[in-house]
């Protein structure tokens, strides 16, 4: 019965180069260059050397952006990650102080993170009607609450055996391990989301959950995996945090969820689901890191940097909408 009308449907894709230049990622790359030029002019100390030296403090949050991007693409949100980081860091410190080998400490942090993520995942998949915002709000309070209980009245803990953590904060030449790890995980996350079946399904769920389900996608299974992984990565983030602060307290990881969401959304990943990619998120994350390092070198207070991030975030999401609205009105007037 093929093609009764003999109609032929084109299946040759357009050149990807052209698409890339006019995309949000293209704009972000330009912005990244602009920010670096600005920082170099703003601070005399700003160069590759100082950047590599001061960067690691800010890099740990980029880990969180990766799974957060998946959750946002699903059209959902997880605001408990900062608390998971706090609880994992606390537990890792405690385990480390018992004198356990460092590999056990690493496993403990990852395990605690994974368990927390699994709690979110369990509640969200068992009671799928619940908005993720409210569930993760509750677990945000719970996870940090448990850390508060564990930490007791002092509210903080330091690692006595810093050897392992120091090694984690090490470098190859001038390049810190964490930068390698961020890039490797970033590439893996980007490839899975952009090129793999799993990623395609995540986009499908985020764009139209019902249609995805009818098309035979295990919606709840995929949600479970992603929320659990979010926890695991939070544990990883906690380990690297300890490697620079050698301790944890009740405010560890405070606001990290917001930073991770801000990086992703500024990178073009829509919080309403189905749009954006990890590459954009990574570029925007590095723009923010460079800004922080550059402005920080001239003693600009972190709050001011947050203000700039806030303005960028609202502008990045709001301006395209306003432009679209104006275009629509102009069309109507015609």
């Amino acid at each position: 019965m093929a093609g009764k009308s003999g109609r032929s449907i084109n299946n040759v894709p357009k050149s990807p180069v052209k698409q890339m230049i006019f995309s949000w990622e293209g704009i972000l790359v330009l912005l990244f260059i602009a920010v670096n030029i600005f920082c170099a002019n703003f601070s005399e100390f700003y160069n590759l050397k100082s950047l590599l030296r001061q960067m690691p403090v800010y890099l740990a949050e980029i880990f969180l952006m990766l799974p957060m991007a998946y959750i946002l693409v699903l059209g959902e949100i997880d605001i408990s990650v900062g608390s998971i980081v706090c609880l994992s860091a606390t537990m890792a410190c405690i385990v480390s102080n018992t004198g356990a080998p460092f590999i056990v400490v690493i496993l403990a942090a990852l395990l605690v993170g994974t368990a927390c993520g699994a709690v979110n995942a369990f509640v969200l998949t068992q009671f799928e009607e619940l908005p993720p915002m409210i569930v993760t709000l509750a677990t945000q309070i719970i996870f940090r609450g448990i850390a508060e209980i564990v930490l007791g009245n002092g509210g903080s803990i330091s690692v006595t055996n810093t050897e392992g953590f120091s090694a984690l904060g090490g470098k190859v030449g001038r390049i810190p391990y964490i930068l390698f790890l961020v890039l490797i995980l970033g590439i893996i996350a980007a490839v899975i989301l952009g090129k793999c079946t799993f990623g395609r399904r995540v986009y499908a769920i985020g764009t139209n959950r019902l249609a995805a389900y009818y098309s035979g996608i295990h919606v709840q299974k995929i949600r479970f995996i992603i929320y659990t992984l979010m926890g695991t990565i939070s544990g990883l983030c906690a380990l690297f945090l300890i490697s620079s602060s050698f301790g944890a307290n009740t405010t560890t990881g405070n606001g990290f969820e917001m930073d991770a969401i801000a990086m992703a959304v500024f990178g073009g990943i829509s919080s309403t689901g189905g749009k954006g990619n990890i590459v954009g998120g990574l570029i925007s994350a590095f723009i923010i890191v460079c800004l922080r390092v550059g402005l920080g070198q001239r003693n600009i207070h972190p709050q001011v940097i947050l203000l700039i991030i806030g303005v960028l975030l609202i502008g990045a999401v709001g301006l395209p909408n306003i432009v679209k609205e104006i275009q629509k009105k102009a069309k109507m007037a015609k």
Partner: protein
Amino acid sequence: MEKKSFMKKLTGSREALLAVILVLLFVVITIISPSFLTFKSLTDMLKNNAVTMVMSLGMLCVMLVGGIDISIMSTLALTGMSIGMLLKYDHISSTFLAFVIALAIGIACGFLVGLVISRADVPPIIATMGFMYIYRAMGYLVSHNGEWASAAALGKFKDFATTKFLGMSLVIWVIIFCYAVFFVFMKWTTLGRRIYAVGSNPSAAEVSGINVKNIKLLVYTIMGLLAGLGGALQVSIYASAMPDMQQGGEMDVIAACVIGGVSMSGGRGTVLGALLGSLILATIAKALPLIPFFDQLWLNTIKGVIILVVVVVNIVLQRTADKNALKGREM
């Protein structure tokens, strides 16, 4: 049979159920620690939770239209810090003027949030996250990079919280006034009902000629107004202003609403529910140190567990109700 219908009424009305829970909490706590149920203890409790209680009303409006606002405590810090600095450097001294300025700043902040959400179509969580950073940083800038306005600097202003009228602190009168106004506003005025209508079915509201965008702008402005009021109250009650005050406190406000039965997806929620929700949270916070074994450290965990249990039980009840309704369908 009668008992069943009573139970049905109880589970049918969210507010009745919450009231019963609140009374039970009171009874249990009074048995453990009789000093709880005294006038002073109760008014202290209200005073300490005044900020959350007042701001729950704004969050109620925001959540009714299906939105959320996590920038409120930054607005509070900005307004509180602004009047704190104005008082500290003797630009103003009148308590009344300080309140007016706080409210004005709050309204401006809320209006801007509302504009971005209703006109530029930015999802509420993203927009208010951005403003959470922005207003917090502005509060910090206002404070000349981290100065505090301490009790001595505040002059007469801090007396507002200690002044009594008819035996109760003015702060408590403010709470009562706000709840009374909102009770009337949400139930008896068309504008209040428009907020419900927009939350219940935005497209139907659009078709019946309600300006959905303006209603959204309105609720965030109301939220800003109450955050401004919260800022003034906070500074007055704690007799100090600092740029990082109430950081993370927005979660308490949202929690109070959720426990009070306000739905995250809009359309459902009452002033009474918000009141009971915030009272339950306040009571638990107050009671925890009185109970042996538990101490203040457990507060957050218990709070979180309560929220989780409340929303999960809600779903379970809803599922059973749906199932029972189906069983009754004749075939």
